[in-house]
């Protein structure tokens, strides 16, 4: 591969995978207002106007950004100035870096060269994601600790306790998926979901691991620290780790939650819903299970697959937002019960059953 194409494609891929979650997070912040309004028979934000039109309430988001930038950036006198500033950057960095291994498409052929649509094709991609997601908890803990505030510290401790409890469950659940699909590389995980049972039923992870999907999704929502698992923040009544934050640093914590929502949606899609796969769409075009098909140019096929990945991720973001606006918050003991007494044993049972089935089938 020539150097110009290599560098251009790498920069373009990095830009895409950076802009994709950030854009989606921006729209999630908008959906937080508008979707909740539509679900609750309200109208939602429509007062801020640009050129006399509210643009579906999107102007509010621009106003929010301006407000966050011009607000006072407050650091408590007795707090640790360096760590206090570092914490939101850590939280956001570890949420964004995980997208490097998410395959957002298969490959494009440009000037005779194939470009894999994934920034870093690690052969342990799935482990990289959870390593980085686990490091993300440092952002919360440091935020709580460096504020030198008891309430913030307790919030940080709640955050770390919750993250550790549910990370174990996530780790156990993906072992089931890895056993069923037989690889650790994210791109291979998606490619191996491209087959069809009986010639028509797509072999997506959710068919192989229905319980695994459910457990992963529940634990994933807990990882995003949003309602019904928003014990670390609890912005409306209990005080969380971001108590001493203001201005853009506060917004970064807020944004981290949305980016993690996109991340969990992306990983759920990659592991359990076929990633960029579209049923019956192969490299040469559609092949219908009832015979016949459409010939499509391979590059068009792969652009369709990129769109399919984006659409699936958007759907799961919508679903998580719907859950956030439907369920009340768990009590802390219920949270721990759910994590340790239900999800962990179930995910262990899931591993055993999956391993037995894999052993018998092979």
């Amino acid at each position, binding site marked *: 591969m020539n150097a110009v194409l290599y560098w251009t494609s790498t920069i373009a891929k990095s830009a895409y995978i950076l802009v994709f979650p950030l854009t989606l997070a921006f729209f999630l912040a908008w959906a937080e207002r508008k979707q909740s309004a*539509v*679900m609750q*028979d309200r*109208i939602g934000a429509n007062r801020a106007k640009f050129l006399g039109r509210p643009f579906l309430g999107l102007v509010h988001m621009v106003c929010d950004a301006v407000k966050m930038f011009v607000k006072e950036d407050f650091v408590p006198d007795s707090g640790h100035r360096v760590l206090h500033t570092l914490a939101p950057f850590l939280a956001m960095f570890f949420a964004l870096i995980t997208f490097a291994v998410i395959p957002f498409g298969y490959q494009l052929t440009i000037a005779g060269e194939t470009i894999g649509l994934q920034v870093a094709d690690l052969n342990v991609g799935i482990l990289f994601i959870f390593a980085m997601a686990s490091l993300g908890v440092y952002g919360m803990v440091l935020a709580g600790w460096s504020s030198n505030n008891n309430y913030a510290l307790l919030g940080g401790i709640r955050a770390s306790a919750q993250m550790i409890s549910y990370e174990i469950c996530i780790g156990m659940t993906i072992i089931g998926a890895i056993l069923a699909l037989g690889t650790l590389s994210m791109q291979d995980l998606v490619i191996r979901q491209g087959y069809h049972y009986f010639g028509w039923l797509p072999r997506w992870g959710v068919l192989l691991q229905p319980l695994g999907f459910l457990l992963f999704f529940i634990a994933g929502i807990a990882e995003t620290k949003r309602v019904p698992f928003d014990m670390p923040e609890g912005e409306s009544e209990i005080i969380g780790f971001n108590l001493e934050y203001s201005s853009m640093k506060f917004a970064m914590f807020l944004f981290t939650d949305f980016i993690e929502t996109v991340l969990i949606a992306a990983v759920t899609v990659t592991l359990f819903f076929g990633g960029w796969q579209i049923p019956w769409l192969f490299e040469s075009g559609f092949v219908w299970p009832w015979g016949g098909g459409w010939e499509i140019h391979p590059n068009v096929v792969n652009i369709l697959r990129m769109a399919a990945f984006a659409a699936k991720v958007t759907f799961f973001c919508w679903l998580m937002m719907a859950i956030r*606006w*439907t*369920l009340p918050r768990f009590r802390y003991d219920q949270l721990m019960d759910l994590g340790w007494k239900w999800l962990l044993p179930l995910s262990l049972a899931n591993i055993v059953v999956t391993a037995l089935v894999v052993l018998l089938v092979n």
Partner: protein
Amino acid sequence: MAVQNIIKVAARRREATLGFWERVYIFEVVRGLWITTEHFVGNLYYHILKLFGIIKVHPLTPTIQYPEEQRTLAPRLRTLHRLVRREDGSPRCVACMMCETVCPALCIKIVAAEGDKPQIEKRPKSFDIDMGRCIFCGYCVEACPEDAIRMDTGILDIAAYSREGMVLDIDTLLSLQPAQRRTDKEVDELQRRLLQ
């Protein structure tokens, strides 16, 4: 004994109402999500129709877009006060201090002066109502022997930038108009007929 029985029955009923599948919770979550999704899809349909101008009013949201749309007020609703004038234009108030005395929020301040006509003994030199204190109980209206103060302007959005700004003086109170279509004369006629 009776209370304990009630508590026992309530506890038993609560246990009876939560079945196994409800304790599992996941199916109840799905049921709840189904309800909110139904609302979401139904509302979204009408929002899209409204966005493209096919319908003017969203039929499912009860929202009133406040400054532009305002709900109609009941005629008997107590709103901002006004002072009623005589037919010659002078205030009806005779500065008897009844309203100032009855006011539980102590928001009315009247300074009396001698009347300028032989048949009017007193008139208000100043008549201030502190809207920052008023609790809209309507006692002043009931206490007034001359029917000089009424709360029928229909004005609810009373706001000012300072505490002093919330104090309305006699000129402001006299300048306010009733919200209803009935004039002062018609109201007087109605009251006279009701009293007969």
